[in-house]
């Protein structure tokens, strides 16, 4: 494997010459994007321009056809990289919420932290077993690895964290209900805190408000804004122009599988340069 990629200072996620085709249909035609730590990026564009595909490529939900995505010193587009451990640090929120229907709200939030915690505990125990075995033959005994928190503690901590997150969005009384009993806005806010429970370094939002009733859009956008103010790094595919203008540090306009224009929101909305951008904005604003 290649030497770990040196990320430029302040860049958390970097896509380089990213291409994606579905059969003969080339959806992404070579995109480059550096996401800085703490930056909020809004991706807008006409439907079918590849914005969702681009976002889904960033955590390899779709495997890119070619190109690289650098995160944490690894090229996660490389199939030899264990994508799962990286995905723990990349939160994702879907248009259709995708809460686990067979789990209660609190189980939804706790699932991944508990899985990862228990796995880390087992891994450390297994490694210690080998070290102990090796020590039988070693002159200089190797020290055992410190054991991470036990599964019981992991569960307790995950539960506390989940309740804390639910309190934050004011839904702690919904902890033990199943997602089917919630409204769209509640589901999406829970989906957001489910991603937050893993303390991700970057969050990807795939049209988080498109499937919501109009009166619920606000509560979800408010939560996303709050996260933005706290300094969470985010990439948001959205059709909410007002929200993009208000929240984003940078707007990407995608068209035909490429980034047609890229600018800070003020400049983007008041003084678009690209012809396609002007046409698009004249239709949506």
């Amino acid at each position: 494997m290649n030497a770990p990629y040196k990320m430029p200072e302040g860049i958390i996620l970097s896509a380089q010459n990213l291409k994606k085709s579905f059969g003969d249909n080339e959806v992404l035609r070579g995109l480059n994007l550096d996401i800085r730590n703490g930056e909020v990026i809004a991706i807008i564009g006409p439907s079918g321009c590849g914005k969702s595909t681009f976002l889904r490529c960033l955590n390899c939900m779709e495997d890119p056809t070619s190109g690289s995505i650098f995160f944490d010193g690894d090229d996660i587009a490389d199939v030899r990289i264990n994508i799962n451990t990286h995905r723990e640090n990349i939160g994702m929120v879907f248009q259709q919420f995708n809460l686990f229907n067979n789990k209660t709200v609190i189980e939804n939030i706790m699932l991944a932290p508990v899985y990862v915690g228990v796995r880390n505990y087992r891994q450390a125990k297994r490694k210690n077993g080998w070290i102990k075995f090796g020590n039988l033959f070693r002159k200089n005994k190797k020290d055992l690895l410190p054991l991470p928190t036990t599964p019981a503690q992991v569960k307790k901590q995950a539960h506390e964290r989940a309740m804390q997150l639910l309190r934050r969005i004011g839904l702690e009384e919904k902890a033990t209900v199943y997602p089917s009993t919630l409204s769209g806005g509640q589901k999406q806010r829970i989906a957001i805190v489910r991603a937050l429970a893993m303390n991700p370094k970057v969050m990807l939002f795939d049209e988080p408000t498109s499937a919501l009733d109009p009166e619920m859009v606000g509560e979800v956008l408010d939560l996303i804004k709050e996260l933005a103010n706290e300094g969470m790094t985010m990439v948001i595919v959205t059709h909410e122009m007002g929200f993009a203008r208000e929240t984003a540090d940078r707007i990407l306009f995608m068209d035909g599988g490429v980034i047609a224009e890229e600018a800070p929101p003020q400049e983007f909305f008041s003084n678009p340069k690209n012809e396609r951008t002007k046409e698009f904005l004249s239709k949506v604003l």
Partner: protein
Amino acid sequence: MGSLSSAWNVFYEQMITKGGYKTALQGLFTTIEIAVLGLVIGIILGTLIALVKVMPKNNPAVKIGSVICDVYVGFFRGTPMVVQLLLGYFVLLPMLGVSSDAVVVAIIIFGLNSGAYVSEIMRAGIQSVDPGQLEAGRAVGLPFWPAMLKIVIPQSIKNILPTLGNEFIVLIKETSVVSFIAVVDLTKAFKSIGDATYEYILPYVMLALVYLILVLFVTYLIKLMERRLRRNERTV
């Protein structure tokens, strides 16, 4: 009515006085044993095959596995159960040079056979679950298998429970062919009770009733399970 009451007397004597009920109970136990263990093997096998079939085919090992599964499912769905039992007991066992209890052979063959059917049921069940569920599981960092086991399969089980119950019922009734390899199941037991007196009416009527009660009981159990699994759909 006279003949019926005399038939009843003969049946009573055969069942109770001569200890025929022991054979019948033994047969009932064997039938249940083969059906239940067969279904357990079938579900495990079927789930594995279904997972191989729905796995993304970007890996040559998965492709090869998928072809093997196709051949397996093709064979076990393409030949009658009786033929599989005969092949297993009279061809495969001598060829391998092992001697085994006929009941064990029956359990294995029933498991393999039902695995072929369950795999298709499972595949349909897995594909009936919204792909977003698996995606969301993968997005929070779960690998493919844990995401499948914790999120997708529990939901698919709920969808396929009626069909799976059907498979179990078919399996219970199909055990009546194991007498081909000299296993004493429920059918064989009642037949031998009838054989002893050449009085077949009551043994066979009873036989039918026992199967009926067994199946009705299973139907009831499935309904209970279904209700429990549908918990998360109820609105408060």
